């Protein structure tokens, strides 16, 4: 197991280097001048331009800039934005909010999604099954910005149950509605995945054995069937959580949340390469670790999978 983890960690190094280089190259290949409009209505004084370009290594060729960037990164320095703000500080502030939002979305998906899937799976073809199938289909078919705006209008503006927008330092409750909106799509998938797997596993031989052992129906389903049925669901939710930790541009925009997604969006718009690369590098690392965690979890849930 340790060997496996070490191997996976080593595999991350080329992935991180490769992905950051690609992002680095792409961001700086974007047309546009970061100095445009920097000094108001008139062009910037040459001395300022020179210093700015030198500070941000803008005159070096791409590979050299990249190597310099990596060197800084190795020392834990994510660089500064064109506004002179420390990227790491900015990310830390925003990341906390993104994590909170992702946790709400994940809990919502896992609890409601799996529950709905189980109910549908054990009553396949009955009313509750059809209800789950139709309602998840509706959720899947409606884009997030529609669901988000609708939820904001109904529950925020009309009913006033939730804040319409979020403050700059949001608490759990402020993020509840955005979290539900963010998790709704994956909830639908999780419910359907649980339903299909459960319904299929209920016909498995070992479930028949469990019935023949004289176990009660709740135990046959809850212990013997559910464990196997949830393995793919856990994998899905884990990968989804990795995605959620990458921020949610649309949901963040609707509810005015200062999370990572919005930060990357802003930084791309202002051609702030250091900020984009810094943020994305972190997201890549988070995603890789989430994947590793999911794979390890998979081995724990399913003893047939060995990581040795």
């Amino acid at each position, binding site marked *: 197991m340790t060997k496996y983890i070490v191997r996976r960690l080593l595999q991350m190094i080329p992935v991180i280097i490769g992905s950051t280089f690609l992002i680095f190259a792409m961001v700086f290949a974007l047309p546009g001048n970061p100095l445009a409009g920097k000094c108001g209505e008139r062009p910037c004084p040459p001395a300022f331009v020179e210093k700015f370009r030198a500070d941000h290594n803008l005159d070096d060729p791409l590979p050299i800039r990249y190597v310099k960037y990596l060197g800084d990164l190795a020392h834990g320095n994510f660089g500064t934005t064109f506004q002179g703000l420390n990227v790491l500080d900015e990310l830390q502030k925003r990341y906390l909010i993104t994590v909170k939002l992702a946790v709400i979305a994940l809990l919502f998906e896992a609890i409601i999604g799996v529950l709905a899937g189980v109910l549908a799976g054990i009553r396949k073809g009955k009313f509750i099954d059809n209800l789950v199938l139709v309602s998840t289909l509706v959720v899947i078919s409606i884009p997030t910005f529609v669901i988000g705006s609708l939820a904001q209008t109904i529950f925020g503006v009309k009913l006033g149950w939730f804040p319409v927008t979020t403050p700059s330092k949001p608490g759990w409750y402020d993020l509840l509605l955005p979290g539900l909106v963010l998790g709704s799509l994956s909830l639908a998938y999780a419910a359907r995945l649980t339903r299909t797997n459960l319904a299929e596993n209920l016909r498995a*031989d070992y479930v*028949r054995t469990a019935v*023949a052992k004289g176990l009660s129906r709740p135990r046959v389903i809850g212990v013997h069937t559910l464990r*196997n049925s949830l393995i793919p669901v856990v994998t899905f939710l884990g990968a989804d959580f990795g995605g959620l930790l990458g921020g949610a541009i649309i949901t963040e925009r609707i509810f005015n949340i200062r999370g990572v997604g919005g930060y990357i969006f802003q930084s791309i718009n202002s051609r702030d390469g250091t900020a984009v690369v810094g943020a994305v590098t972190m997201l890549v690392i988070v995603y890789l670790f989430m994947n590793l965690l999911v794979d390890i979890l998979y081995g724990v849930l399913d*003893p047939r999978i060995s990581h040795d």
Partner: protein
Amino acid sequence: MATATAPTAHTSEYQPQDGLLLEVEDLHVEFHTRYGVAKAINGVNFSVRQGECLAILGESGSGKSVTAQAIMGILDMPPAKIPQGSVKYCGHDLLTMPEDRRRKTRGPEISMIFQDALSSLNPTFPVGWQIAEMFREHRGMNKSDAYAQAVRLMERVSIPAAKQRVKAYPHQFSGGMRQRIMIAMAISLDPAVLIADEPTTALDVTVQAQIMSLLQELQQERHMGLILITHDLGVVADVADRIAVMYAGRIVEQADVRDIYAKPAHPYTKGLLDSIPRLDLKGQELSAIGGLPPNLMHIPPGCAFNPRCTMAQDICRRDRPELVEVGPHRKAACHFSEEVLNA
């Protein structure tokens, strides 16, 4: 509390009358599918006594496994339906019993072994856990006691290093060892009736013999009623006391094992026996029963076997023969059983 390994007398509300454990009467099972109704079992009667081994023999689709599942109460209903018949265990009809009461008979009273132990054991739990679950759920035993019982049972079915392997998973055992685990689980609560549904079909020949002798040994030690479901005549000969041959959802012949091997009373049984390879007929062509078993949605009128029977007459296509006495302890359902017997 009854212990798992000692073959103690049964101390439950179910007491066999004169050693009679199980009586299946006029059992019918049909499957309602979108293509029509498949009549899998069409009036089956038999009984099982303490310490007796009844073999139910038949081809695929003859209804032998469905019979077992109907007795065990593990048929999926729907699509399955039991329109008539009764399955009495110690005089109590299992089919009309409240489900919760019936559930409690599975394990301590009637137990079952399945064909493919790999798919029949839960892949995500250790084998010891799965055996211990019987004691925890039915006897309310605590975890460590139940595990101790599991180890004892694994030792009883001759699993080497049982103590070390109790926490291993089904996929870490060989096929024969897995079937032993299945057996250990089935006999754990000392049931009065054990149903073995093709227990050796998925195993190779040398292991088959070991498993059969283990089953036989356990049956004699515990005085169980054993229902052995198989299509393998070779397996039956050594273990069974009586044989019921099934065809198209009915028993066509029922007799003591020696009688049936010496002189079958039904052309189908005769055909089955003739299709066993024999050393003294080496070099000759092996005889086989021509044709295929009938489609259970369209069972032919008269005797279901008539399209494949070499002796079929008009009466066979018209009247269905009933299962009647054709000798001491033996019954057959054939218009010409006398002729078959005297052939």
